[in-house]
């Protein structure tokens, strides 16, 4: 079971997206941790895990997501998950309480949420 990670940085939105393809398990979770440590810098406000091509996630993968959340929270940022497949949703549901993770069915929902945040910031 392997994992491929592509990243995309959106400077305007201070956002980085990690596209996960394959399996986030005990063998591959460290790869994601390394990628997050290397590429998520203090100027990033939103970290998105796009899980459209993610077929499998175990507790090791969920820990990686939560560790990324901890890193982002320290700098006042947020983590969002998008496009989760049904079996991935099921695993997160089994873990019940998911603190402070933003969950979106797809990119459109995420964009709508980020636009509202930006509009709020502009009004202040």
């Amino acid at each position, binding site marked *: *079971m392997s994992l491929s990670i592509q990243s995309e940085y959106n400077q305007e939105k201070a956002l980085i997206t990690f596209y996960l393809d394959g399996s986030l398990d*005990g*063998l591959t979770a460290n790869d994601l941790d390394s990628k997050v440590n290397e590429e998520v810098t203090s100027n990033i406000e939103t970290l998105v895990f796009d899980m459209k091509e993610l077929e*499998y996630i*175990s507790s090791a993968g969920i820990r990686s997501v939560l560790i990324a959340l901890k890193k982002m929270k320290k700098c006042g940022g947020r983590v969002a998950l998008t496009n989760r497949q049904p079996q991935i949703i099921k695993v997160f549901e*089994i873990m019940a309480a998911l603190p402070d993770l933003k969950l979106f069915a797809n990119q459109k929902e995420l964009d709508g949420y980020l636009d509202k945040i930006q509009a709020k910031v502009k009004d202040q």
Partner: protein
Amino acid sequence: MSGAIVTASSKPKLLVDVKTAHQVSLSLQPKVTELESVFGALDDYFTSFPLQTIKINNIKLICEEVFINIASHSGTTENITLTIAHNEDHLVIQFDDQGLPFDPCRDDEKITDISNIDDIKIGGLGIEMVKKMSDELFYQRKGNLNHFCILIKL
């Protein structure tokens, strides 16, 4: 040899007897990297026993969580045996290891709150997942061996 198939004469006895000829046992070194062998064995097993993808996914999850726990935390340096067996109603997964006594069925091992992520214990999340994804769990300590058996209704 990693992921070696256990011979018929030395196959472990299951805590739950499903009375079946469909039983495969695998001997695994207590290393996280052996997870590849676990997944490979499961893929082979389900080639001749097709199941819904989502059920196979759950079974892979259960096997990963238990194996990683044993390999990482039991302290064993001896091989771990994984056995998979099924009949028309049930699938059984059993792990046998020579690590420290550990009963995953005990409630005091439970993680009750993951909202404070500073308190997540390594392995605790995994055991919670196994409990929630299985129908019944059985544990026995015999001599220096842990026997942990997971029953899944088909």
